């Protein structure tokens, strides 16, 4: 471990004083094994306390610190600076309103989740113990349950940018997660909800969401399976 000098450009926006976002450069010295989050903490704790950003678990599971670094959506906490060299360009996720600096308004993102009825719907009486679900049945949804709702996918989705009504990859992935759960009886409802011009058909298989996903979930593939299910269901 050694110290290195880096240049960090951050897109700043202070709602109390700025009319619009602007870039600010920080020249700082950090450990060479630092993460992007370490860099932000260093700036915030020792150089400029007014810098605002979100972070919590710093172990890639809470989804707070998704942001754009040198053009890529990443989780700041798990991303080492050596991936980008000595010049960093850090900005908030695209497609969301900036509240302050790197903090964006994620309420619309979470509101979209509600629209797809994101909970197991069971028509029949519940069993005394657990539902029987085979490992093969679980396999259908296993990877999709890794989603941490960090919004990196939605922020990378060109179909989401011009259309705030589009459900977007995260909510659609959640729809997939329940439609393909062997225990769920709510598929008809949900398939009707996503069978809409602002639903699954707005996905143009651009694959940006998959590339942006820090959990490497094959989102586009699952959305394609959801499309197929919509078609099957309407036949």
């Amino acid at each position: 471990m050694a110290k290195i000098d880096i240049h960090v450009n951050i897109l700043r926006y202070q709602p109390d004083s700025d009319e619009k976002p602007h870039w600010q450069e920080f020249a700082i010295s950090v450990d060479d094994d630092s993460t992007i989050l370490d860099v932000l903490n260093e700036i915030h704790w020792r150089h400029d306390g007014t810098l605002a950003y979100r972070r919590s678990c710093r172990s890639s599971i809470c989804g707070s610190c998704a942001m754009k670094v040198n053009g890529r959506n990443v989780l700041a906490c798990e991303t080492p600076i050596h991936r980008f060299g000595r010049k960093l360009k850090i900005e908030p996720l695209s497609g969301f309103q900036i509240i302050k600096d790197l903090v964006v308004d994620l309420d619309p993102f979470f509101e979209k989740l509600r629209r797809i009825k994101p909970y197991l719907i069971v028509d029949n009486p519940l069993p005394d113990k657990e539902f029987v679900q085979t490992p093969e049945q679980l396999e259908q949804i296993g990877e999709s349950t890794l989603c941490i709702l960090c919004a990196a996918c939605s922020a990378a989705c060109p179909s989401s940018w011009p259309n705030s009504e589009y459900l977007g990859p995260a909510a659609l992935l959640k729809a997939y997660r329940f439609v393909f759960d062997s225990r769920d009886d709510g598929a008809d409802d949900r398939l009707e909800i996503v069978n809409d011009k602002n639903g699954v058909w707005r996905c143009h298989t651009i694959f940006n969401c998959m590339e942006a996903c820090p959990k490497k979930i094959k989102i586009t593939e699952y959305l394609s399976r959801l499309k197929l299910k919509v078609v099957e269901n309407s036949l």
Partner: protein
Amino acid sequence: MKIEEARNHHQIDAVIVGAGLAGLRAALEVAKSGLTTAVITKVYPTRSHSGGAQGGIAAALANVSEDSLEAHMFDTIKGSDYLADQDVVERFVNEALKTVYEFEHMGVPFSRTKDGRINQRPFGGHSQPRACFAQDITGHVLLHTLYEQCLRHNVLFFNEFQVLSLQLKDDVCRGLVAWDIRAGGLHVFQAKAVLLATGGYGRAWKVTSNAHANTGDGVALVLEAGLPLEDMEFVQFHPTGLYKHGILLSEAARGEGAYIVNDAGERFMKTYAAAKMELAPRDVVSRAEQTEINEGRGIQGQDYVYLDLRHLGKEKILTRLPQIHDLALNYLKVDAITDPVPIQPTAHYSMGGIPANLNTEVIKNAAGQAVKGLYTAGEASCLSLHGANRLGTNSLQDAATFGRIAGSHMTDYCRRSAFADLPAKPLESAQAKIDRLFAGGKERHAAIREELQVNMTRNMGVFRNQDDMLKMLAVVKELQDRYRQVGVDDKGRAFNLDLIEALELENLLSFSEVIVEGALARKESRGAHFRSDFPRRDDGNWLKHTLAWRRDGKIVMDYSKAVVIYPQYQPQERKY
């Protein structure tokens, strides 16, 4: 009343602080009854640190082995080094199965046995494979599932709000005051029942598995309100923290068969716990690890040992422990399939917290008198289920089960109670905290926090002694003095992270003093509290819980006897 004041004044039946497993489970229970229910959380709910729990949730389902409630009870009591209250443990194991089946019915994607039942794996200190798991992301899927259920049942969420004061008068809780982090500004929440489910206090240490948010806010609020804290000296150090980062690598790794080895490549647990080896409880394994390090047998003489997964093979690692594999790769550039992973003990779990009775009502003294309308559950609470040391996978079960119990009692209480009047000038103390930091002096919160954390890791770790603890006490008091001169750079209202961190620091400094005082007073070694100068457990004098108040600027203590009910669970020598 001015318009802004009206907008910022809420009247809600049940207000729950914290959106982790305990908070959300309680919220769900109250909301299902039709009462108005709000969750106040300083992060978006799915960001809560319950999501960081990896390995499983304990329940004696007996899906993969013979198991029983009695065995779960005995393991928990022995794991607690006999300090756990046995009535609480009994309630816990009796409710545990229901809690897991409920979760499954809500849609939790538990890993399965071949015949489609919930799969279970071994865990430290449990005599049977009792950990129901979803790969190594159990807390994550439980948290998200509960959040989804809360959306379904129309729980109101106040996301990104920081609670600054409890509104208590005449032993009745009447609500609280919180700062809206996003927009800035104080809000008054008048409530019939308040639940504190604010999680643990591991952020007082430098090396910790805890999230930035785990600053023990609820614990500090209770202390500030003139109420006691319980057993704060008992803090669990998890043996497999990722070296330097402190990030959790789940005990599930050892549950699946991983080894811990020293510089000579020896599985040194054979010296310390020959029967259970790596699956001894965490306090035992952390002490063994620290002893190896202290005696020069760390890797290349340094302050870490290895967690070795290689013999498990690529397939098992990637299917059962994918998160652990990713964490080691991302943070240390170590591929656990081909190389051993550097680990060290990391501050992990707070056994102590806000004292409460079996109904999760907060109590105000050793006689067990309750404060009306104030409840606590999860890691913030101390019932005491975990005594001096918690077993792995008992925490998710604790949070969910006592979250539900809290929700149920809050519902009953709300139905038979009217809104109590708020005390005069409810905003005053919260406003004073904010004003002082905005007016502020030259001290920086970041510098003070760093000093606190470094010293807590140095002096209040796996091994403690009087000299180190007295040093620590002096450090805390000096830092508390300096805190009075803290000012923030950021004078804005919207999303003022600077302000929030400064407020959190006040909490860290406040309860850290209680931890040190409690540990200094407890002249014995029990569970996670180990004193080199008093290395034995002393049941004659110390089979009791610490209660600590801040009165006139000083910490004063009283004690209540541990609840020991059953002859088969009497304290005995604890060997693994």
